[in-house]
């Protein structure tokens, strides 16, 4: 309990009384700076789990504790990115990245006077994902992979402690996806925030995460927990190693069993 950053304790969540639990009896604990991945069949409540971590939803039963305190409302220390980049088309790349700073405290109060400083910070972030020179472009002028990079920058600009990613790379082609894996890996190595990555892609989960959790069909329960003991830094070549392939196959077997059941 002591060194846990996020502690999820026997949590159920039902959106309403009719549809039953979306997730059930979920318990896990995350250390600070841990990178966890959630995999499972569609509709298994992975996104629900994210809403719990961010404080957007409260559990029907059990409790979620972040930084030693029970979560009772939006956390503000989280950043989120989704499958769709959901950028605002009337804002430039830079404007989109700055959006969270206009909302979240303490940045909000000082946004006007420190705008230049914040813009510089956003530019640095964009540079670190290889988007320098695109600050004043509009989202529709960018490729899907670039938009997703902007979306990740937006999720990180207020230096959140917890980054929640809901299938962020699912809509990208295979090469762009692998490129973004590396970008995310480098950002994480650099800034060491805690990550919850929800994904369908077992290779993605294995490549990026410290720990992979496998969830069951609805109502979602955690069926398996797998530590990924592949040393870091990991390069893309590692995804072709026997060990890596072994882990992916093992995870795949879990999923296969769930789908048959």
């Amino acid at each position, binding site marked *: 309990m002591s060194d846990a950053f996020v502690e999820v304790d026997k949590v159920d969540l039902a959106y309403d009384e009719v549809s039953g639990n979306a997730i059930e009896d979920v318990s896990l604990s995350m250390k600070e700076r841990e990178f966890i991945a959630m995999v499972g069949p569609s509709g298994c409540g992975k996104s629900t789990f994210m*809403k719990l971590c*961010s*404080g*957007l939803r409260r559990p029907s039963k059990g409790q979620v504790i972040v930084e030693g305190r029970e979560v009772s409302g*939006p*956390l*503000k220390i*989280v950043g*989120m990115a*989704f499958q*769709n980049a*959901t950028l*605002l*088309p*009337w804002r430039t790349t830079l404007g989109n990245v700055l*959006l*969270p700073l*206009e*909302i*979240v*405290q303490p940045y909000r109060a000082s946004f006007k006077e420190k705008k230049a400083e914040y813009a510089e910070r956003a530019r640095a972030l964009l540079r670190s994902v290889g988007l320098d020179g695109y600050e004043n472009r*509009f989202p*529709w002028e960018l490729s899907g992979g670039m938009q997703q990079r902007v979306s990740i920058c*937006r*999720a990180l600009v*207020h230096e959140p402690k917890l980054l*929640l990613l*809901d299938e962020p790379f699912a809509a990208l082609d295979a090469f762009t996806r692998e490129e973004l894996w590396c970008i995310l890996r480098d950002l994480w190595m650099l800034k060491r925030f805690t990550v919850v990555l929800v994904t369908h892609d077992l290779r993605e989960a294995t490549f990026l995460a410290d720990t992979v959790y496998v969830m069951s069909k609805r109502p979602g329960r955690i069926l398996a927990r797998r530590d990924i003991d592949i040393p870091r830094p990991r390069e893309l070549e590692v995804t072709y190693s026997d060990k890596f392939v072994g882990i992916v196959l093992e995870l795949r077997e879990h999923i296969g069993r769930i789908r048959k059941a």
Partner: protein
Amino acid sequence: MAVRSSLERWSPWVVLAAIILVWEVVCRAFHVSDFIFPAPSGIVASLRQYAGPITGHALQTFWSTMAGFVLGVTVGVLLGFLVGSSRLMYNALYPLMVGFNSIPKSAFVPILVVWFGIGTVPAILTAFVICFFPITVNVATGLATIEPELEDVLRALGANRMDVLIKVGLPRSMPYFFASLKVAITLAFVGSVVSETIAANEGIGYLMMSAGSQMRMPLVFAGLTVISVMAMAMYAVFAFLERRMTGWATRGMDARA
């Protein structure tokens, strides 16, 4: 490419010129009487002859329309904001508004005349009741269709409803709003002219009505032309504004043009 795009640009004028030409030729060839269906030349002559009075009536109609339109935009935006930002309000008000909107607006004119007498006020109010609805629906749609993920992103940062509305909802509904203005301004002209036709001593509607009763058809058609030109000009103004303000929403069209 250049030829093609300039052709596209001029095509409406070419069609207009062709219609006028055919119209003129047909009227002359078959000796159609001015009392039945005046030729364009007759309409132009009438426009020239009565330029003074027509201008007076046109200005009357124009200002009534604009007053009703401004009223309609104000009420339309406020209602749209209310209906679009709250599910409860949407459920409570929307069916009523649909019911109200399905009443033919000319049916209001006699009521308005009883309340306000004949003249400018019924024209303004008819323009208003006919034009606020599309604005309300469009603004409400823009606000109600915010992507839930985007809302989650902001809410997770501690944004309240107002933040989401101001940062996302309002800019997002702007293209819908400007599109509705183009519809609303032409509807507002319909409203004021209908009202003037039924109950007024001034305005293009009144002019056409009285000219019609005296069988001065070229003057009636001159009135029609003036309304049409005014409505098209205002439409163009709002189309221009739309492009200036919300170019990001129509970038596909701009790229092709």
